[in-house]
């Protein structure tokens, strides 16, 4: 409470210093991400600074931070608390942080950070901690039990205040569980909320960080929380960037989110009873964003199952990108060049030096911004050329035969920081690229890709699937292929299905029986009775009508979004492309997409979705953009926000960026998602 008054500093000071960059294809709404970032940071700082037991900000207290998941720690400490885009590193080669080092503000006494599910030494913290702050997600109910256990272990000391922070807010179930677990009666436990709805991971990627999204609606059948969270986030986004005049939604969840969004808007409008009367019927105009597309992940379950072939996608596949950071062994990006001969010795070194580091991978690194979406066939040589160019420019200058005047030297000195920054980033990425390339050149990777392709093209690969289980292929990699097979062929043939399931259970374990069950519930896996003819799956139809396979695509100088996986274009992205031309006469596509397509305009005063649907818009999204361009500044494309309800993959992000940059596509795209994920993390979230 008081923290705000006492400490107007920190954020407010910097605010005045921020100079917004002009909008670009990769940063179409500079103000939005900056505003959200500042807001989030201020909220978190205020919370960390306020002492829950005394209410006065001035008193100093020692605080331990406990996070529900590793991902949440990365998000809050690396993304929210310190802007990863603005961070500089000390040291010669360094461009990373040690894994357990977090750039925390000095004004707060934080004695450490922990992850909830890890074993913790309760006794050692007991002596020197006043407040333990837990950051939890309300959707993950199992965290509550862990917290209760944690608190019970520390119960001996009543002096410690436990505060449970729910992002964005605790639900009624959480309150009930607190009661059941006996936490509400304890005087030293308090519940708080932290209303950070949207986290700008990149200038063009905003995330709600709702990890349980797809699971909650597809497996648990309780989609309400997700729907209202996404709708509320969209409302907040509109608070920052202005009301969005045009909204399209695909898939059942898309429609639900749109409905909730409309009804929230109406609620908000009516809650202000003392507002002036308004004339009715106007379509809203004047915001920064022209259109919004909401896509239910259910519309495109195929894409997450496909192996990505862009640098970023592969990096995620191999190392795993979480909230814009990768965690790996320091020797990967900083190999000790002295002892690479003796294998035995190297093993010893490895054991000794298993130091994990965190490395930010985001668009503010200009080199990474350029290389991230390049195809596997391109980025290797690209990085080599970069290295060569850098070396040359350096050599050019240091060579003694050339004479330089003072201005040149001055220019060079000025460029040194940029130069070293680029060099650091380049070294990192060359090492990472080697790692990635190494994986992508493995036979198994190639075989996997070939199998994916033949399944996409309509073949059935049951025998290969059999073999993969028998070889104890990693379970989630196998499920990706299995689900892909089921999705593309409209199910797995009944006879094969039973034997495959048995194989899975025997090979991977009994618990996988339930994971299979969840995959079935989520619609990723289906039994298919043999009576039907093999060619009539929805995917097969979509493949033709949306031209999903484009084997001729140029992967080095891409001319089509399908370059992201060497010839397959993500369904969701193709839908966006088609939406530009409108849906008239494209019933063959609409028929194959679950749910119906909602295409509405936001009016003022607001209406609910049902009445908005009565007056369908008369312009296609493409035509709308043309009007905007004609009205607005020349050469500036209007902005489209694409919302993925249930997560987005790097493959799709690459494709969207590709579109955003292309002159022929009428919009700049900002992506809002519940989580950035990949096939494996997607399937894991379901189990």
């Amino acid at each position, binding site marked *: 409470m008081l923290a705000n008054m006492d400490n107007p500093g920190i954020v407010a000071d910097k605010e005045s210093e921020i100079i917004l960059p002009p909008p670009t294809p990769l940063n179409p709404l500079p103000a939005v991400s900056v505003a959200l970032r500042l807001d989030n940071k201020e909220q978190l700082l205020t919370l960390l600074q306020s002492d829950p037991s005394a209410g006065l900000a001035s008193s100093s207290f020692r605080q331990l931070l406990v996070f529900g998941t590793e991902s949440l720690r990365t998000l809050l400490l690396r993304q929210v608390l310190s802007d990863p885009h603005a961070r500089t590193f000390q040291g010669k080669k360094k461009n990373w942080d040690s894994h357990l080092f977090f750039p925390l503000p000095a004004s707060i006494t934080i004695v450490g950070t922990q992850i909830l599910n890890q074993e913790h030494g309760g006794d050692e913290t007991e002596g020197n901690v006043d407040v333990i702050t837990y950051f939890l997600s309300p959707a993950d*109910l199992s965290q509550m039990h862990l917290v209760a256990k944690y608190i019970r272990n520390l119960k001996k000391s009543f002096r410690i205040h436990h505060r449970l922070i729910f992002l964005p807010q605790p639900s*009624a179930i959480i309150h009930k569980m607190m009661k*059941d677990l006996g936490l509400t009666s304890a005087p030293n436990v308090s519940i708080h909320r932290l209303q950070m709805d949207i986290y700008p991971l990149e200038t063009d990627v905003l995330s709600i960080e709702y990890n349980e999204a797809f699971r909650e609606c597809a497996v648990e059948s309780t989609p309400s929380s997700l729907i*209202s969270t996404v709708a509320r986030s969209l409302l907040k986004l509109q608070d920052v960037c202005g009301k969005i005049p045009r909204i399209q939604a695909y898939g059942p969840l898309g429609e639900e989110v749109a409905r909730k969004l409309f009804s929230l808007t109406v609620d908000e409008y*009516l809650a202000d*009873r003392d507002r002036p009367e308004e004339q009715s019927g106007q379509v809203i105009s004047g915001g920064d964003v022209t259109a919004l597309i909401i896509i239910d992940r259910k519309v495109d379950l195929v894409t997450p199952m496909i192996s990505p072939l862009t640098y970023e996608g592969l990096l995620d596949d191999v190392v795993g990108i979480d909230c814009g950071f990768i965690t790996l062994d320091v020797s990967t990006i900083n190999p000790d060049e002295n002892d690479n001969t003796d294998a035995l010795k190297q093993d010893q070194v490895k054991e000794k030096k298993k130091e994990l580091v965190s490395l930010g991978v985001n668009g503010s690194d200009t080199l990474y911004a350029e290389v991230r979406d390049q195809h596997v066939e391109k980025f290797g040589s690209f990085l080599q050329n970069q290295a060569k160019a850098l070396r040359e420019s350096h050599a050019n200058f240091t060579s003694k035969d050339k004479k330089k005047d003072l201005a040149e030297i001055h220019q060079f000195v000025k460029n040194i920081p940029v130069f070293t920054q680029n060099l650091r980033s380049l070294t990192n990425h060359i090492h990472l690229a080697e790692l990635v390339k190494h994986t992508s050149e493995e036979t198994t990777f190639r075989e996997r890709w070939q199998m994916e392709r033949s399944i996409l093209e309509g073949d059935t690969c049951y025998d290969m699937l059999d*073999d993969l289980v028998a070889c104890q292929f990693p379970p989630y990699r196998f499920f990706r292929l299995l689900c892909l097979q089921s999705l593309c062929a409209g199910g797995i043939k009944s006879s094969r299905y039973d034997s495959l399931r048995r194989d899975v259970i*025997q090979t991977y374990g009994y618990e996988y029986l339930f994971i299979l069950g969840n995959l079935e519930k989520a619609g990723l896996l289906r039994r298919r009775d043999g009576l039907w003819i093999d060619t009539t799956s929805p995917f097969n139809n979509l493949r033709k009508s949306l031209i999903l396979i484009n084997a001729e695509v140029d992967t080095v100088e891409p001319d089509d979004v399908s370059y992201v996986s060497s010839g397959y274009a993500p369904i969701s992205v193709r839908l966006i492309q088609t939406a530009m031309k409108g849906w008239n006469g494209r019933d063959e596509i609409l028929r194959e997409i679950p749910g119906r397509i909602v295409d509405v305009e936001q009016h003022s005063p607001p209406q609910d979705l049902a009445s908005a649907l009565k007056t369908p818009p008369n312009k296609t999204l493409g035509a709308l953009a043309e009007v905007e361009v004609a009205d607005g500044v020349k050469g500036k494309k209007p902005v489209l926000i694409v919302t993925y309800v249930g997560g987005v993959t790097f493959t799709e992000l690459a494709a969207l960026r590709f579109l955003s940059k292309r002159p022929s596509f009428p919009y700049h795209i900002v992506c809002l998602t519940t989580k950035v994920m990949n096939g494996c993390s997607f399937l894991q979230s379901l189990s």
Partner: protein
Amino acid sequence: MVASSNPFDDPIAETETAYTEQSSVEDKEFSASPAEASWQYLGDLPYRRIPIYSHVQWRSSCPSSMQQNCLAWYPQGLSKPQHLVDPKEIRNWYQTTTQTHVKACPHGGPIAACTAPLTDSFRTTQLRILTNSGQILSQQEFPPAEYRERYGAVDILCLGFTSRTTLVVVLNDSLCFTYNLKGQTLLQPFYVCQESIPLLQAKVYEGGVAVLTKNQDAAIAELLDHHDEEEYSQTAHLSAQRIDSDDMSHYALVTILPTSEYAKRHFCTFSTLAVFSRLRTTSQHPELFLSTSDNSVILVEVSTMKMTDVDCRARVNSPIVDMVFAPNGRFLACFTESCILTVISTSFETKVLDFDTSEGSQQIPSQMEWCGEDSVVLHWKGLGVLMVGPYGDWLRFPYEDDTVYIVPEIDCCRVITDSAIEILQRVPPVTAQMLSIGSIETSAMLVDASDAFYAGTSADDSTVRDIAASDQLLSAVETCLEAATREFDIVQQKRLLRAASYGMHFSYKSIESKGVVQPSPTAQEFVAAARKLRVLNRLRHPNVGWIATSAQYDAMTPIGVVARLIALQRPALACSISQYLGLPKSVQIFARASKAAAYVMAAEGTDAQVAEAATEIILGGAGDHSLHRGAYATVAMAANQAGRPGVANLLLLLETSVVDKVPALLSTGAYADAMAVATQARDLDFIFSTLMEYERSCLTNSNDVSKAQAAFLGMVVSKFTPEGFHTLRRYLQTTADVKNVTNLLIRAQQFGAAGTAMAQRALKEHDAREKQGLLAEASRIFSLGKDTALHKASTDDYAELIRDQETLRTKHNAPEVAPPSSSVTSTIASVIKFAAIQMRDQHRLFSDADKLAKKYRVPEKRFWHIQVTALAESQQWSNLRILSESKTKSPIGYKPFARAAIRGKQSSAEILKYIDRVSANEERYDLFCEASLWKRALEEAGKLKDTRRVLNVKTLCNSNEIQLLADEMLGRLAQ
């Protein structure tokens, strides 16, 4: 009435007719007399006593009450002492054997009265809440029935109102009752501190109640509600306990302060306490002042429990026995044991006054209160009321009755007696200046001129013209207006308003801007003053009985007045006032909804008629339903309370706000409807609270817990939305007993899910016996389902596998042979791998693996794969070779062998042995590449006549020799 050309007088004229009846009554009530004649001077400040209601009948709906006219109430059963025949003596006897507590709501609000015997001469008493004019707002027997066994009327220690109009009654052992103005219990009675220790004193202050126990501990209960910021309770002291009301709208924060330790350490005792409201402290939490036996005061910060001695020993010469804060919180009136009234600043730094009362009485006054902000009023039984001013001046007001109760207010004090209410007030400065005898203020001259004009005695308006010429006319007019609002007498109010209006004739200029005529600020003030007076007069009307002064009205704000009227059960008046004053729409809607609720409670007629009438009241002429969301639900709840569920349902059809509709539906018992609405609105919290609410109602309506549970689950399965069902399932899954969730799922015939829940619990179980039990149960549940054959089979297999693993471990006497695992494959693999450690038992182990594979019907191909992988992983290369050379031809070919050898970094010869047995050229090529046998790979590519493969070898091989060969081959292939 006011005669004026001012167009803005019109609304007054118009509403005057509406209020005629009221003002005529009031005209009779007050009599016109020269105001200044009754003033009394305290030093040079004039004070006045304004009788508001005389001959008040303090009503009681109980016919048995013996003293109808009094605030005191005695039960019939109380035996009359026969020897006292004189009614005055009887009265006196009553007064000496009982104590009547009378407290009033601040800002002229209602009065609570309660008589308690000093000895336990009667068990129960009446707790009444009355208006100032003596009408009953609520009446109930006290203590409530369920507490009568333990407590009697004699236990009442203290009562009082908080600033949020909550009536608090504290008993001797700190049990605390809270009521609203309707007499409804807000919070379940709670103890402020440990119940075993009797209290010395309890004081109700603006924000709650503070107590002092006989063993010198203090405690405070802050009464809060949903208007208070949620964070406040989080910042309270760690030991503070929160007590919530059933509907979560009110709560109390109880903090026990261990002051006895302090007292022991400093060898002192505490005699009285006072609470400094959190609105005035720097810590933003209340502070407790405790007077000590060593002439000082201890200040206790409630949020930190910090205790500070303010050390005022130099300023106070004997222990303080009573302390009262001035309404503005800047001064503290203290009464000491040696009968000295000391007024001191709240910081205890400056002493304002010392006044010795010992000449009049050696007693401690029965009441000490502030009158406004600049005088202290003391009352002694039998001596009347003494008023002491800031400079030690004093006045004595005789009161005939001894039953005098003083209520402090921000600008005056109310004096309540057995038959009358009056206000004791410092004459407002404007009035004093203007109306004092012989005043030569311009405003006084204006009043005189106006009086003369209306009396028709003289038409000389030169005085006014002189004033106008000196530019003081407007300020004179404004003074008149101001003074008018501070008058209670309607005749006087009219006289002053008339004077103001008369003056405005000489000065009125309309301001024109952009062609629109604007009223002058003075004219606007005139209208505002007239409106305020109208409202105040209406409130003071005996049938409302609310005596607010102008300053109190300003302090409450018009919206606050409306809210209080609703709390006072005068929604119709609240409604018309909010409309008359043009308050914000939200306030008007709230008032209308309250009015409709009151109507519904009392209305008769068919459901449709009542609902329609209620709707009309809610709409109040504006036809837009959406504007009034929330209002319908409020009224529907009231209808339901009044036993008109039909009306409630009709009204709820019109409600569009989910936030209001769901609770209303819940209160009418329409759980399935509530669930449908909550689901449609996509609100998880409402979905869940509907479930919990329904479960609670099932459990309270039935004595048999298991039956109630069954009814609950049955309804959830059959009538609630799927999402409701799944939400309950998710919640039950978190509970400790797995039966909770399986019961639900089995009832819903979802055997697969039920078995899954059971089996998942089994997977988490560490105890082997328990695990087997859970698995058996899961298997049984699976067997009930239709398409759960695989589930059942797998579950049985798993149970069997655990047993087999156990057997293997005992047989080989090593845990590594079959570590606990749920996978058949990994069990077979671990058995095979164990052969690498236990060479002697190789054959037995391999045959065990064989047996396992057969038992679990592992297909041959997969078994081979398992063998190859396991052998390779445990470095049993010779065994791998033996396997490859066994009589049966490998059903998986030899590629996996080759690959295993390559990955295991075996010699090229070893690898080649396997590759040679692979027949397909493509596969051979791939394997050669993988093994980095570039030459052989190149050959293979040549055989395949594939330039792409050749090129591939060329780029990858990193050897000049092979690159040359590759070029050569490319040349050949190109031909």
